[in-house]
């Protein structure tokens, strides 16, 4: 029993989150860019879009191409054969986003527009 081993404390804190059925919009340029990034791994790999703590406004967007985690807590959206996953815990934060790709040297790359965000920071990577 003690502070260092953490015994004797209460159970972990869980935050109730609203889970909604996610709808997203993906532009043609984003689809092309995803195809280039994923090459021929459509069957085994997926794009995970998530929201993490941080950034000027409270949350940061994160995108990862990863092996399909086959986790029932994700919602899958298929776009031209590419699987996009969003975790249920992020569903209310990311519902309605538009995924775009800008092919410019400055400020280019994948961009997310979030109509439900109350605020966004200047760089566009953080929202709240």
């Amino acid at each position, binding site marked *: *029993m*003690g*502070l*260092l081993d*953490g015994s*004797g*404390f*209460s*159970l*972990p*804190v*869980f*935050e109730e*989150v609203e889970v909604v059925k996610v709808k997203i919009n993906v532009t043609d340029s984003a689809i092309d860019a995803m195809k280039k990034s994923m090459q021929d791994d459509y069957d085994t790999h997926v794009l*995970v879009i*998530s*929201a*993490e*703590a*941080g*950034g*000027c*406004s*409270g*949350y*940061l967007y*994160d995108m990862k191409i990863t092996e399909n*985690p086959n986790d029932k*807590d*994700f919602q899958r959206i298929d776009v031209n054969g590419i699987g996009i996953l969003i*975790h249920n*815990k*992020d569903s209310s934060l990311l519902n309605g986003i538009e995924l775009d790709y800008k092919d410019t040297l400055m400020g280019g790359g994948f961009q997310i527009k979030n109509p439900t965000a109350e*605020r966004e*920071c*200047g*760089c566009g*990577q*953080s929202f*709240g």
Partner: protein
Amino acid sequence: MHLSKFLYPTGNYIISNNSKSILSGPGILEHLDKIITTKIIGCQINEIHDSIICHSNGRILDQLKIYILNNKAIIINNNVNGSEIRSQLVKGIPWNKKISVIDGDDGIISYRVVGSNITKILDYFGINIIELKGNMWKEYGNMIISLTIGTDYEILEILVPIEEKSSIEYIMAECNILESKIDNWDMMRIELGIVDYFDINNSIPFDVKLNHLVKLNKGCYPGQEIHARLESRGKINNTLVRLRANSNNNKKKFKIIDGGKIKIKSSYKSNEMVISLGIIPTKYENMHSIETVENISFLIEKLD
């Protein structure tokens, strides 16, 4: 300021009214780093890291003291915000990180020991005070012991599992350290310039002398955009000072005759004097006193 004015011969302790949370799992420092105003990545086990967590409008939600353990951190902040801080910590955990947040409020008691001879209790623990310098914590049995050093004071902070409350209080008594009432603690901390939650809550860090806990070169955190803008435009107009007034006026805001406002954050009364920590425009910080429209004269004491 002489501590002996307030203290039992060796020292006094207070049971701190704060909240304790335990963050555990791999990657906790990376997770915390995205939320707090300071750079915690790279800190070592056994270090204590002081920081702030802000709202996205740049105002302080709370000040944190973070004890770094192996894949674990104990986070101490004001008890008013325990649930909100834990909620913030839980909400943004990435889907692929196994990080958990535990409420330690009912499991840990936090003691603060102030005094002219606090090394007596360290001797009891067999700890040399040098071992606690440089923001390091030490363990004694199931306790975690650390030292906060200010200009005129040293405070021992002791975290104890609740089951050992009677043991630590027995040790305190053996060392001639007695419990202090909260009013005495407020008097002591205001005189020593130790800021508490109520002095900083909802303020911009630069206005309450917490500039050292804002690291604008660490990347984004909630409130960073506001802090960067204030800093780069030189819009740091206010500062926290100690104020003495010959008045029992309970007002929290005063208008300065020469322009600007005084915001009283916390106070204690001693005879006919009211001694406070308050925010004033920085341009008055080096003056001896300021006069207000309300006919009250405040003596100004700059905090280090």
